[in-house]
Structures are given as structure tokens and as C-alpha cells.
């Protein structure tokens, strides 16, 4: 009798312990068309190859949630897709693990990782580049009327183009655009924005379209707002609009003038209990083949060996084709100013 009890108890314990040993890895990204491409080319193949289970969740960017998890010591996310505009800040605030470069796999053509990745993709020790992407604005040729917008100035010109504009609810990119629309040259934007007068100028420019602004939190809302008429011009990640045009046949057009281009990286949340598995996943997901799959949503690969696999038909839609008319998002500026401008932006919103 006692022995049976003991055995039963041991069996129950073993059952309870089993899932605890095979920890699930939690990867977090931006959802929508981009998330679908990552699932198809990174998450699913990884699970098929290793037998590990990866929970794939969505978030809307920014470092607040990661910070809350690290500060509370309650890590729920292991691997996170972060925009480089936020990466420097997250890394310098100790929210991310350093990813050793020597674990990264060589390219499919045999070139060592350090040489195969574009330098920008490995610029920060806490992340490994996943995509080149860009923030543009788009309109629908159905709702825009006669003349079509072509510059950032047009986005801020409500007299010429009446109607709502949708922007992501955070200061990044919006303040840059406001200054450009106010006549600041693209290469001076961050210098101007680091002064009190420059910041006041940017907010004053945003004030001029304040009543016509619609705010959204997540990139996946951008094509939706354009689709259901919530706004006539919508700030978006280029891939979201590309997806809506290609997959759903929507009559959307992108304006590349002063697009703010950036990278996304895989990063690992500081203090995760699954560090080894997280590193293993990053290693897998930044191989030549998974990375080149991101061209499904018109995001450029971060490896030279991946560029060779890009379908020539879409090169014009990749951000790399529009770098000349664009502005590089400055992660170091936002690491220094993210806190204070974030607070100013929120107070401005509530005024």
C-alpha cells in the first residue's frame, strides 16, 4: 500500500516536472504580415528542426514592457524583435543580454558571420539584425481625391490635403518628420531636436495638425486605418503597406520622401531563465535562409549572402532602394532623449 502511494506520488511529481524541464521559449514580435513571415521562416522551421516549442506573441514595440519585466524580476519574454531606434536605449539601461558574435553561423556561401552581416546589423552588442525596414506614409488612391501627396510637407499640409492623418503614438519619427516639414534639412534634424528650441519647434509643428491626428499603437493598425477610412494618410512600416497591396490588392501608394529607415534585431531579455535556448534560437533565425524569407513583406535582408536570394521583382519596394531620399533613425539620440521627449510627448498629448 505504502509502496503504491509512493509510486503514484513519484509519477505525479514526474508529470509535473516534465513540462518544467522542457521550457517553452517565448519569442515576441510585431504581428501582422511581418509576424506571419517570421512565423513561416523562423519560428516554424526552428520548431521542426529542434523539436522545441516556441510561443510566438505580439507586442507594439517600445521598451516599457521589457523594462517592467526586468525591473520586477519577472521575465516572461525570452527573445524580442526590437527596432534599433529603441535598441541602444534598452541595451544601455541593462535590459538586454549581450549576444556573443562568435555563435553566429556563417552565411550559406561560407563567408564568416562578421563579414557576411552588414555592419549596421551588428552595430550594437545586444542585438543581431533581422531586417532593413523603413517608416513611410501611405495613402489610398480611392480616397485621396485629385492631387496626390509626395512629400513629408504634404503630410502636414491640411489645407492642401484635408482629412485625418494617422501616426504611431510615440515621439520617435513623428518629431523628426515635424522638423523636416518645418524646413529643417534631414541631416540636421537630430542636432536641432537635441535643443530645447528645436523640441519646441517640433511640437509647434505637430500642433498645427493636432486636430486632424489619429493615433494608433501597433503597426498592424496602419493598413487597417487606411482601409476603413479612419485616415487619408497613414504612417506605416513599409512592409505593412506592401503586404496590403500585394496580398489584398488594395489601391495604396507609399510616399518615400524622407522615409526614416532602421533595422529590427533579435535581442534577448536580461535575466531570462532560458538563455541558452534563446541564443540557440537567435543563431538559427539569423541564418541566411530564414533572413531572406523577410522579403515576403518587402523588408531587406541583413546579410550580404541574403541579398543574393532576393527576388529581383521587388528590389524597388525594398527600403534599400530609397536610402538616398531617407533619414537614418538615430538610436543613440533616442537612447539619450527617449525618456525626456517621451514625457514631453505624453504631456503634449494630454494638453
Amino acid at each position, binding site marked *: 500500500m505504502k509502496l503504491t502511494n509512493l509510486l503514484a506520488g513519484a509519477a505525479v511529481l514526474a508529470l509535473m516536472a516534465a513540462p518544467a524541464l522542457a521550457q517553452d521559449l517565448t519569442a515576441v514580435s510585431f504581428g501582422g504580415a511581418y509576424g506571419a513571415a517570421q512565423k513561416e521562416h523562423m519560428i516554424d522551421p526552428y520548431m521542426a528542426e529542434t523539436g522545441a516549442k516556441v510561443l510566438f506573441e505580439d507586442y507594439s514595440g517600445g521598451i*516599457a514592457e521589457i523594462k*517592467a519585466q526586468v525591473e520586477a524580476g519577472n521575465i516572461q519574454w525570452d527573445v524580442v524583435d526590437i527596432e534599433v531606434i529603441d535598441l541602444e536605449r534598452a*541595451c*544601455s539601461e541593462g535590459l538586454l543580454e549581450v549576444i556573443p558574435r562568435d555563435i553566429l553561423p556563417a552565411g550559406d556561401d561560407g563567408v564568416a558571420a562578421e563579414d557576411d552581416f552588414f555592419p549596421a546589423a551588428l552595430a550594437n552588442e545586444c542585438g543581431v539584425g533581422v531586417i532593413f525596414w523603413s517608416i513611410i506614409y501611405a495613402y489610398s488612391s480611392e480616397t485621396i481625391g485629385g492631387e496626390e501627396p509626395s512629400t513629408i510637407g504634404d503630410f502636414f499640409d491640411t489645407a492642401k490635403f484635408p482629412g485625418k492623418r494617422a501616426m504611431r503614438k510615440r515621439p520617435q519619427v513623428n518629431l523628426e518628420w515635424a522638423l523636416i516639414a518645418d524646413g529643417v534639412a534631414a541631416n540636421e534634424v537630430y542636432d536641432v531636436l537635441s535643443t530645447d528650441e528645436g523640441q519646441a519647434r517640433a511640437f509647434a509643428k505637430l500642433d498645427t495638425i493636432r486636430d486632424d491626428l489619429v493615433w494608433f499603437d501597433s503597426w498592424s493598425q496602419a493598413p487597417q486605418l487606411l482601409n*476603413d477610412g479612419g485616415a487619408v494618410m497613414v504612417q506605416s512600416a513599409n512592409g505593412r503597406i506592401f503586404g496590403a497591396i500585394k496580398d489584398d490588392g488594395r489601391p495604396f501608394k507609399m510616399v518615400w520622401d524622407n522615409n526614416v529607415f532602421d533595422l529590427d534585431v533579435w535581442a534577448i531579455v536580461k535575466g531570462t531563465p532560458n538563455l541558452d535556448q534563446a541564443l540557440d534560437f537567435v543563431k538559427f533565425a539569423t541564418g541566411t535562409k530564414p533572413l531572406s524569407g523577410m522579403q515576403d513583406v518587402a523588408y531587406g535582408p541583413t546579410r550580404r549572402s541574403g541579398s543574393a536570394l532576393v527576388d529581383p521583382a521587388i528590389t524597388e519596394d525594398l527600403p534599400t532602394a530609397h536610402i538616398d531620399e531617407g533619414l537614418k533613425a538615430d538610436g*543613440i539620440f533616442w537612447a539619450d532623449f527617449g525618456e525626456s521627449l517621451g514625457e*514631453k510627448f505624453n504631456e503634449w*498629448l*494630454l494638453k
Partner: protein
Amino acid sequence: MTATTVQDSSLLPAGRALTREEAWFARRELNRRRLTAFMLVTPLLLFIGFAFFAPIATMLHRSVYSPTVAQLIPDTLAELQSWDGQGLPDRAVLTTMAVDLKRLASERTSGKLGEALNRGLPGTSSAVKSTARKLRRVEDTELGANGAALLLEANDRWATPELWRTVRATGQIYTERYFLTALDLERDAEGAVQVREAAQIYVQLYSKTMRIALIITILTLLLGYPLAYVLANSPSRIANLLMVMVLLPFWTSLLVRTTSWIALLQTNGVINSVLMGVGVTSEPLEMLFTEFATIIAMTHILLPFMVLPLYSVMKGIDPSYMRAALSLGSRPIPAFFRVYFPMTLPGLSAGALLVFIISVGYYITPALVGGTDGQMISNIIAFHMQQSNNWELAAALGSLLLALIIALYWIYDRLVGAGNIKLG
């Protein structure tokens, strides 16, 4: 002993006192009952203590406790003690700060310091973080010898006494600063309290929250009172059907009800289509993401909280009072106001208090349909919890909200009397 005897003797026939043994048994019995009663409510007490009082106490504590700066730069703070608050501190202090900043940069905690100082003086975090980044590459010996100059060179803000006053002020472990911020106040250079120079938003938000809650209370009252009257005075078959219609939305998920309002109110939604179809307007009206949306959706959601107490009080009013008033010659309307209405007041005050207090702290509905206009104080508290990670300010705002509700309840008690509330 004597006291017990006297007390217990009231239960006994006159002239007989308890013997010593009887008194002992009686006391033991009494204690046992008390113990049983206490043990029966213990789980509840533990639960309330754990799930209600402990979190509130933690929140109150957090609103005045901010050890971050004191933990990060103890050496600089110790040296700052001797500074008189005028002009720049000694070079020694500046050098210590430079050394501290280098250490923070290599430990990756300079962001924490920047964040904490930025709350005291907006714009400071960029100075802290950019300086820390620059100093990280400087040799220790160079920093020890020349730290002050390097610090001043790295960013102009280090030359302002204002910043050093902020460092000293934020270095206090217990502080009333977050309460001042929550009331749009701050301390000036001499330490006197003044209105905050940066944007003033919170007082305005509190009054907006109160205004919205008041409007919702009045609307639910106007809609709920006649409904409760019909419910209480219809034949039971109709009354039951009506009651189900009141309760049905009550049983539906809050999220479902709120999102159905999104479907109704949006630009291409049901209401706009109907209005444009009928020809009332040619342009769609903007209703979603406004204060209007918050008010109308919350009125709908909170209506049962008004109807149910009113109904149960009205159900208990004997119809013969009204009949008596009418048969004694009063006209229906004065009879209603002088006889019927005063009797419904307990239900009315219960409903109004319930709706008002619930709506003051409401979160989900304004978050979903309110846009930026229709935000209430609870949304800002959530924002500081989840987005800006300023838990201290969130705690101070929450404590003020709690104090406000207690104050309102106190005023209500003085004016109407809490004993008059009747929920059923």
C-alpha cells in the same frame, strides 16, 4: 471576577449570583463561541488583508518611497550634503559625480539615474546618459584628476545649480515629490511649493474625471428612474421580461459591450450610416474616440447599477400611500414629488453613489473608446504603470484618487447620511 459576576447576573433570576465554578464555565463557553466566530471569518479576514489592505498599504508606501538615486550615487550625495545650494558645488563633488557616472555606464544603470532625475527636472536624462556614454571611455586616473572639467565639458547642464538641486532632492529616500507632481506642484529653488512650470495636467484630469462621472450619474438617473418605476409597477409577467432586458447586458462581457459601441460609433459605423442614409448629415459625424463616446458607453454599462437599487426600493413602497394622497385631493405631480419621490431617496442615493464611485475609477471603456479626449485619471495611472514605468507617480495619483473618494463619501455622509443608503 466581580465584574463578570455582575455582568452575568443580569441573565439570572434576581437574588442569585453565579458560583465561582459556574462563572468559569460561562466564561469558557463565551470564549469558545468568540473563538469559533473568529475562526469562521478568519479566511475572509486573511483574504481581505492579503488582497485588499496589503496592496493599498504597498501603494501608499510606494508613493513616498524612492530609493533609486540614493542607491545609485551614494558617494556624490554624501558630498553634496555640505553644499549650500547656491552656485556650483565644489570640484570634488563634480569629480565624484563623474566617477559615479562612469561606473553607472559600465554597469548599464545610467539610464535608471537619468530616468529618476528626469522626473525631478524634465530634460535631465539626456544630459546624464550622454555624459555617461562619453565618460565610459575615459581612464580612471584621468577621471580622478580632471573629472570636474570633463563633466562640465560633456554637457552644459552640469553647470546649472538647478540640476544639482534636483540631484540632492531626488536623493532623498522618502519624498512628497510625487504627490506634488500629482497636484501639478513643485518646489522652487528655495524649497517653497509653487505651481509646476512644465505642463499642468493632473488637476485638470481629476476635475474632468469628476465631471464625466457626474454626467454619467445624472444620465443613468434620468434613464433609470422611469425604467425602475415601470419595472416596480407593472404586472409581474411584463416586469420579469423587462428585468431580463435590464440584466441581459449586465451578464454580457464588459469587453463585448464596449466593442459593440465601437461598431456603432465609428466613422463608417451603424449610427453614421443611418444618419447619412436618412439625410440628417452629409458628412459622417466623429463620435468614436471622443469624450462623448466614453460617456455614452459608460452610461449604458452602468445603468443596471442605478436601476437595481431603485427597483428594489420602489418594489417595497406600498401603493396605498399614493392612493391616499390622491384621494385626499393632491394632484398627481405634487403627490409624486411630496409622497412617492422622498420614499425612493434611499435607493436613489445608493444608485447614484454606486454609479459615481464606479465611474470615477473606470478604466477599460475610456481606454477603448475614449481616444485622447475621453481619457480619465485611471487611464493615466495605467499609463504610468505600464508605459512610463513611473510607479511612484502612479501610486501617488492612485492614493489621491482614494482620498478623493473617501472625502466625497464623507461629505455625502454629512449631507445625506450613509444610513440612508438602501441596496435592497
